[in-house]
């Protein structure tokens, strides 16, 4: 649904985006992560045919972003970093206006506007001027605008930035509801928890360059190594008699348990548990040691800053 190769944007000598290649299939949500000024917004602007790439190319919904800008823009719903609402328009008028911009006929845009206001819980507020809305309501209305023409591609730039936790949670829930097998979604964010919660794939961008891309699991394996598990036992027992399957390394042993790393937990973990039960060790808990996206991201950033990535 979105494909780009060697996509680059230079402003004079400044490389805002440098050789970005991405492939996002229908039904996928990609989170584009990076610091402020890393090139996320510039990438989105190129994907919406607002900026022309200096080098490389991109297709969105099958259309080339340079040769078919109108078709690209018709196929994309964009949530910009600033909500972009006209404060003196009501929510309903606003959606109606953008419905007309996207060439929906009158009955269709009226229906869509009502549907979306209903969907986002703005049915009552839809007849008030958007200048009176709370931040969360504004963001939801902006999201409704991005969806007015039922686009196959959604590009969401910082959808929850500067929002209070409740509003951000509301918007995240709505984004999760928008996942569909017909739609590709790109979320630009520096909220790592949000990315972890919503995305199927992650791309980390640093100084305009994609450092890492793939599923969260792939990236964890690559950056943080195989999964680690912590076993807690009731009391002090020796675990030296455990026969560990291949691909399992004990990392540390404590009085009340041990920690191990395993390359293939699906095969190895049941075997370890079986042995623990066989040896009648009083097992309290076995849990995966958290390897958050934040740990991964910070490690990637540190490596990139040192030129190792």
């Amino acid at each position, binding site marked *: 649904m979105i494909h780009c190769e060697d996509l680059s944007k230079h402003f004079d000598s400044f490389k805002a985006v440098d050789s970005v290649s991405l492939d996002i299939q229908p039904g996928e949500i990609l989170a584009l992560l990076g610091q402020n000024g890393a090139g996320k917004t510039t990438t989105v602007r190129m994907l919406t045919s607002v900026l022309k790439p200096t080098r490389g190319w991109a297709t969105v919904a099958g259309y080339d972003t340079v040769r078919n800008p109108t078709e690209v823009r018709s196929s994309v719903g964009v949530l910009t970093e600033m909500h*972009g609402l006209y404060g003196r328009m009501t929510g309903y008028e606003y959606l109606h206006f953008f419905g007309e*911009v996207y060439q929906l006929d009158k009955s269709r845009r009226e229906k869509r506007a009502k549907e979306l206001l209903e969907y986002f819980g703005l049915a009552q507020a839809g007849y008030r001027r958007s200048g009176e809305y709370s931040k969360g309501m504004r963001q939801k209305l902006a999201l409704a605008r991005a969806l007015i023409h039922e686009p196959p591609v959604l590009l969401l730039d910082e959808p929850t930035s500067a929002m209070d936790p409740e509003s951000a949670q509301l918007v995240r829930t709505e984004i999760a509801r928008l996942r569909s097998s017909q739609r590709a979604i790109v979320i630009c964010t520096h909220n790592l928890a949000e990315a972890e919660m919503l995305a199927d794939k992650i791309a980390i961008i640093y100084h305009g360059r994609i450092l890492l891309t793939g599923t969260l699991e792939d990236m964890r394996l690559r950056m943080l190594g195989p999964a680690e598990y912590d076993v807690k036992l009731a009391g002090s027992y020796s675990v030296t008699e455990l026969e560990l399957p291949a691909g399992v390394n004990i990392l540390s042993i404590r009085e009340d348990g041990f920690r191990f790393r395993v390359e293939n937990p699906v095969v190895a973990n049941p075997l370890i548990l079986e042995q623990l039960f066989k040896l009648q060790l009083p097992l309290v808990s076995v849990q995966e040691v958290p390897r958050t996206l934040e740990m991964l991201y910070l490690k990637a950033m540190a490596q990139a800053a040192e030129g190792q990535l």
Partner: protein
Amino acid sequence: MRSFKRAWLVARRELVDQMRDWRILMPMIVLTLFFPYLMNVTAKGAINYINEYGGVALMGQRILPFLILVVGYFPVTVSLVVALEAFVGEKERGTIEPLLTSPLADEELYLGKLMAGTLVPLTVSFIGISLYMGGLAWQGIKWPESGFILQTLALTAVQTLMMVSAAIVVSTQSTTVRAANLLASFIVIPVGLLIQAESALMFWGTNNILWFAVLAVAIISWLIIRLGIVHFKRESLLGREIDILSWVWVWKIFRKAFSSSEQPSGLGRYLVYLWKRIKKQDAEKVLLGPAVWQDWRELKRWYRQDITQTLRRVMPTFLITLLIGVGALLGAYFYIQAAMPQVALTDQKVHDTLRQVNGFFMSGGVKSLETWPLFWHNFLAEVVTFALGIFSFGVLSILVFIVNFAVIGGVLGALPSMGLSPWLVFVSGILPHGILELPSIMLLSAASLHMGLRMVTPDEGHTIGETLIMTIADVLKLLIAICIPLLIVAAFIEANITPHILIATIGHVLELHP
């Protein structure tokens, strides 16, 4: 049609938005309702004053159309704010990006903003004028002639369009509303001066000429609109964040357009070397001879390559200018010849004129013709022509050029009634220096027109600023390389050779009028 509908969609939203903003509505209502009343009082007062002190009633009458212009102009200047923030205001409020990422075409967006920017000022302006006219009727003051009224309405309409289209261009090129408002003075002040010039023409009663003003302003408006559309780039609307005038950047663009050579000047290097020597700093030795020789070779290359290329670019507009010049000259010549029988000069008047000319020649007036003052006069005329061209896309340059050639044609057309052969005077009095002076004027006018045409021609790789600097460099190149040398030689001939040829050829006629 579909594009118009979509442009109207953008305009309609803006118009509705404006009607909901009291900060826009209040000044417009006040100016539209109160200002015409004020002008009514002024008109009545002026007419009474003139009548009371036995002034010419005509003066009182002629102030009326001028006040129509004023009544129409003021609401436009206030509502110009709407056009000035058309794009940059949306950018500041963060509402532009949803529009830019929509399938609206660039032209649709631009024309939508232009329509919204034009309709409100034009409406308030015409409402104001209607109220003013109603006020005049209510006070029992006779309206000006209908032709006069029509002319002022047309002037108001085209001036509004010109101001709004310029404001929209400013809005696309500014990065903040503040910057756009500051730049508005470049729109309001020239139009204010234009209205003063128009009012002068009205007071003189030469209002037929004002139709040319209507035409010229309409052409300039169209060119500004085209300039705006051609240089409207979504990318630059979002790309630029701050306005910083970088003289280094200006110089780099100008330098590159002025000369394709990247080598520093030999003489310049020599002067830097001397300066460093004076300052007792280390400097690589530069000899004067080789430095001058380097500049001489560079000058030859500049003429051979850069000037030839520029001339090639300007050639089509030069040919158009030549045709316009010949047309103006012949048109004025035949018009005067046709008009002469009706305004036949009396023998006495012819005698007086020829006596004055004779007196000039015989009393040593010829000797007062000196090369440098003549050159300076012609040079200033070319500079003014060029400066006018910058602000009018070359339209005013061509108008000045037409006037020059029409004057020559007119003078030649009047000569037969004085018993002089126009051909003889042309060949002996104009051609000797004119063969150099006229092409110089023509080339400069053509280059100014070319500058305007390039500004309104799509140029993917350059911004408005870059194009303007490059085209100015082109005109200056031709001015320095060709026009000025031609003017110097022409001035020398005009001061030292032409008078003698003229005396030799028409002296016998002048001698009849001692």
